[in-house]
């Protein structure tokens, strides 16, 4: 069953506090969080979170198209490297 709309999106309160503190300080830092279940909110856009995957904190740079997803979706808990072949990386 989907979450009731009247409740609004779920976010652990410490994530909100850490994000607000980081934004106010204006420092270029990774905000370490363990809450994979928290929803990505519009005020997180542009911040870099280190989302714990059970072993380490994976850097997640939040962009607009990630709003509404959960942090855990961008921090996989299993390792898969695959082959390099002709795969490309783009510097944003």
């Amino acid at each position: 069953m989907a979450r009731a709309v009247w409740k609004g999106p779920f976010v652990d309160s410490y994530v909100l506090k850490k994000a607000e503190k980081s934004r106010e300080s204006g420092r270029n830092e990774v905000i370490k969080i363990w809450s994979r279940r928290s929803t990505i909110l519009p005020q997180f856009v542009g911040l870099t979170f280190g989302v714990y995957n059970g072993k380490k904190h994976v850097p997640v740079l939040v962009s607009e198209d990630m709003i509404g997803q959960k942090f855990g979706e961008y921090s996989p808990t299993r390792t898969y490297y695959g082959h390099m072949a002709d795969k490309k990386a783009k510097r944003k």
Partner: protein
Amino acid sequence: MSADRVCVGALAGAFGVNGEVRVKSFCAEPEAVADYGPLWSEDGTRRFALTLTQPIKTGFAARIDGVATKEDADALRGIRLYADRDALPELPEDEFYHADLVGLEVRDTGGAVLGRVRAVLNHGAGDLLEVAGPELGEPVLLPFTQEAVPTVDLASGRIVADPPEGLFPDG
């Protein structure tokens, strides 16, 4: 294997009884495996001219010049296919092949060596460079952005990184 070749696929045995082979592609666009000219075996001694005939469940069926029977095709099972690095098309600025980035030395803005790029990952939130080095216990994931990686110098095999605070152990 020559350092200027990249693995783009592998042969997985015969397809049918007419000398066709099954090809597994490791490319971003799977059908591109046949676009990079003649392919080579890992030791560079064998050359394969590949023509894809049809997509199949495990990849592609293909014909290879000089392979006419099922027995010949079966004998090729397990061979990895390498393309010349020069055969890959040029990329626009700020786009790089993973094969070019892996192995580059990573230095901070002060010139201190942080490690080497071990892999390039993408979990949906942008590309990440996995940096490993003797000074680092665990490999560190560095966001591949203009802010965190201001300079990529392929010619000198070096990356200059300005990592966010708290990413590297003493950073």
